[in-house]
């Protein structure tokens, strides 16, 4: 009964989404007020139906209804309640329901948020969102219905691989999807502007908080996924340039570009057609990502059971959504006129560079992700590119971006004269270079050329981000939340750059030969070798070592690196022992028996690795802080009654 109810609700939701799309898009075009009046009730109705459907699926999981194929395949009665609920989005069909549910939530939020906006515009935004929702509902019902029954039902469901029972995995998809789906709102705002054929600075201000919110969720979602992979899979890496990772990273890069481009459009009425294109592309890339993950055309470690039928459907959907948006763009964008010009060293230029570099970075990631597909389409066989391609090409566009950031923050809108603003910036640069080099050469030994550059850049970004807020505080001017948020996000970026550089450059490694009871030092940690004992596994035998790790005399960890010989393959493999200690990752691998009672051991320390994820959360927090700025809450650009002080700060906020 409950699964049928869920399916029924899903069908109703699809019909309501169709109404929402039709009246939202056609109503304003024909200027029919009564048609437009249908849109908001359709949004509410659709939300109730989608929520009901989602609720039914959750209830089927909670009640262990193994007559539902999706439940039986993804859960079992021994699974704790928490993981039964998380299992809802554990696989393809259910994750689509989650996607649709989150889209319905964003749509309701957009319906509330656009109440103050012109009626036709609001109707168009909701109409575009309805179209997206309709497409996904149709897709789910046609190819991936999670409510299908089994006959006969299973007495119990599939017992899951324990590696998938993890809070990180339970939390990562909803957060990531919230970000993905949130970009649909920016897309809808762009669609509405193009349908209207009008785009002004108010439009940019309305769109900004939505974009920033989606971006913040996306940042958290990507960080959660990376963190989960790092500590669960224990491969010692936090980013693998896997197609699925790239599928979430490309929209993030586009959204980052969009946030900055929107700032220019709002402040100065420039970059209009560019901003529009970015808004379309950011969401388009999340749709393309969905396609790549679920159609089975790319092989990935994250693979859902993929199917070309589903692929064909999504491709058709991509053509309709992205194709019509880009066609609309080709038609409307030439009509948009920039409202002013700017000088070469004005802030606009720096933001333009920011956009070019971010889009370039995104394009290189896209090219790398698509490489296997393109080469096989051209009949060149399967080619796949990995970190040796991604790392240097990505760095190539990121380094200038980071170098220009500090200057860009200090640059003025419109006017190019930087000289009176350069002093604190130069001071910050000198301080950053001194601190960076001191840290790099003082605390660590060795390292690569990029290390002092990276650390100094990171510190420079942090220091120069602080100049403006500190300056305002000294002059007793309120710092608006938008500026505080921007500062926080840039500080997060600085921390990210520092920690990434540190991890990449100062992963300290040492090969030592130790007898029982002997100790070795590395990076302030002491490793005491407690000897070797034979181990017996189910399909291997070998030896296991015990190493006690201490720091300044206090215990850190007891670690057990192993060396296994698998009976069948007769291969000897090393099972390293990996531990997280505060912000540092410690790895010990057992090497050769040197014969005289000593064993060779490889010790490895990765400092600051935790800060990589922390930095992403700081950036997201900055975004959220910026959204809470009151400027986004009024429909018009300048409310008539503001105090002179706030008026000043507003015009400066960035």
């Amino acid at each position, binding site marked *: 009964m409950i699964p049928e109810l869920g399916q029924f609700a899903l069908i109703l939701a699809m019909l309501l989404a169709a109404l929402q799309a039709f009246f939202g898009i056609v109503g304003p075009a024909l200027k029919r007020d009564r048609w437009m009046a249908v849109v908001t009730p359709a949004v509410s109705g659709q939300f109730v139906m989608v929520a009901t459907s989602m609720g039914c699926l959750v209830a089927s999981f909670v009640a262990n209804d193994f007559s539902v194929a999706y439940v039986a395949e993804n859960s*079992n009665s021994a699974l704790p309640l928490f993981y039964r609920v998380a299992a809802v989005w554990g696989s393809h069909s259910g994750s689509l329901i989650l996607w649709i549910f989150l889209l319905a939530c964003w749509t309701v939020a957009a319906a509330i948020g656009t109440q103050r906006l012109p009626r036709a515009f609001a109707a168009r935004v909701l109409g575009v969102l309805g179209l997206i929702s309709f497409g996904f509902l149709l897709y789910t019902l046609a190819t991936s219905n999670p409510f299908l029954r089994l006959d006969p039902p299973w*007495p119990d469901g*599939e017992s899951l691989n324990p590696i998938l029972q993890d809070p990180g995995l339970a939390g990562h998809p909803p957060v990531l999807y919230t970000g993905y789906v949130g970009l649909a709102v920016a897309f809808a705002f762009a669609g509405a502007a193009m349908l209207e054929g009008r785009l002004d600075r108010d439009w940019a201000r309305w769109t900004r908080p939505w974009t920033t919110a989606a971006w913040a969720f996306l940042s958290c979602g990507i960080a959660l996924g990376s963190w989960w992979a790092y500590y669960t899979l224990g491969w010692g890496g936090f980013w693998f340039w896997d197609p699925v990772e790239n599928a979430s990273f490309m929209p993030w890069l586009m959204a980052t570009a969009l946030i900055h481009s929107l700032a220019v459009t709002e402040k100065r009425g420039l970059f209009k057609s560019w901003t529009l294109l970015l808004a379309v592309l950011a969401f*388009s890339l999340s749709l393309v990502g969905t396609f790549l993950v679920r159609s089975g*055309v790319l092989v990935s470690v994250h693979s859902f059971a993929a199917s*070309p039928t589903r*692929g064909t459907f999504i491709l058709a959907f991509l053509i309709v959504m*992205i*194709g019509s948006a880009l066609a609309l763009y080709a038609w409307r964008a*030439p009509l948009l006129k920039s409202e002013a010009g700017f000088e070469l060293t004005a802030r606009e230029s720096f933001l333009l560079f920011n956009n070019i570099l971010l889009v370039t970075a995104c394009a290189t990631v896209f090219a790398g992700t698509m490489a296997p597909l393109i080469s096989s389409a051209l009949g060149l066989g399967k080619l796949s590119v990995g970190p040796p391609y991604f790392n240097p090409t990505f760095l190539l566009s990121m380094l200038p971006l980071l170098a220009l950031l500090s200057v860009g923050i200090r640059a003025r809108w419109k006017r190019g004269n930087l000289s009176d603003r350069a002093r604190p910036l130069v001071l910050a640069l000198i301080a950053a270079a001194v601190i960076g080099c001191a840290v790099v050469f003082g605390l660590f030994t060795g390292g690569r050329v990029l290390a002092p550059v990276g650390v100094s850049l990171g510190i420079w970004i942090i220091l120069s981000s602080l100049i403006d807020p500190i300056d305002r505080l000294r002059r007793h001017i309120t710092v608006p939340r938008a500026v505080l948020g921007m500062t926080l996000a840039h500080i997060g970026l600085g921390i990210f750059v520092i920690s990434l550089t540190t991890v990449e450059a100062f992963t300290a490694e040492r090969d030592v030969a130790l007898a029982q009871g002997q100790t070795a030092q590395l990076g302030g940690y002491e490793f005491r070798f407690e000897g070797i004992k034979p181990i017996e596994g189910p399909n291997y035998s070998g030896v296991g070592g015990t190493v006690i790790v201490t720091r300044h005399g206090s215990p850190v960890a007891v670690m057990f690196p192993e060396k296994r010989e698998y009976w069948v393959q007769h291969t000897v493999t090393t099972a390293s022992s990996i531990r997280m200690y505060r912000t540092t990752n410690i790895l010990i691998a057992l090497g050769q028996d040197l014969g005289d009672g000593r064993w060779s051991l490889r010790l490895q320390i990765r400092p600051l690795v935790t800060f990589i994820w922390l930095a992403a959360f700081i950036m997201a927090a900055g975004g959220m802080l910026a959204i809470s700025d009151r400027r986004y809450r009024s429909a018009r650009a300048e409310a008539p009654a503001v105090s002179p002080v706030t008026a000043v700060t507003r015009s400066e906020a960035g």
Partner: protein
Amino acid sequence: MSRFTLPLVLFALLVVVLAIGIKQSPDKDLIPSPLIGKPAPEFSLPSLTDPGQRVSSTQLRGHWYLFNVWGTWCGSCRMEHSMLLKIKQSGVIPLVGLDWKDDRGDALAFLKDEGDPYESIAVDQDGSEAIMWGVYGAPETFLVNPQGIVVYKFIGPITEQTWEQQILPRLPMGQTPAAAASS
């Protein structure tokens, strides 16, 4: 062509590439396992019934067999059990079990009470063998041919229907009970 049309043109090119990608991907409706059409993982594991003995993939070469992942903790495996016994009775194909993350005493007691459909049972105590097979949950069953290639994978309990419609048609005509029994 205006510069504003460029994104649309690039997108059209992308659509072409994606469409070719779909066309070239395997034409099965579902790809349940990347192992299909590939050699089954090599293994040599202790036997459940006789810990001194080993069950290895080399012994199984040259015969069709069904590789069935199960555990006494898995309810669906218990449900599947009667079907497995029927398969054994038919003598068409031997069943090789992988007792996954199980207690040896429980497993032996279960087989004593319910009957043992398996030709041999390998023990995967820490679950590493199941990872090699890409096992997501239990029960899962792999059909392996004499060359050691995985021909088919079924997720969930095997039913009469699966047996007749999915597994039997994949076996060669010459697969007689006698040929199977000799393994």
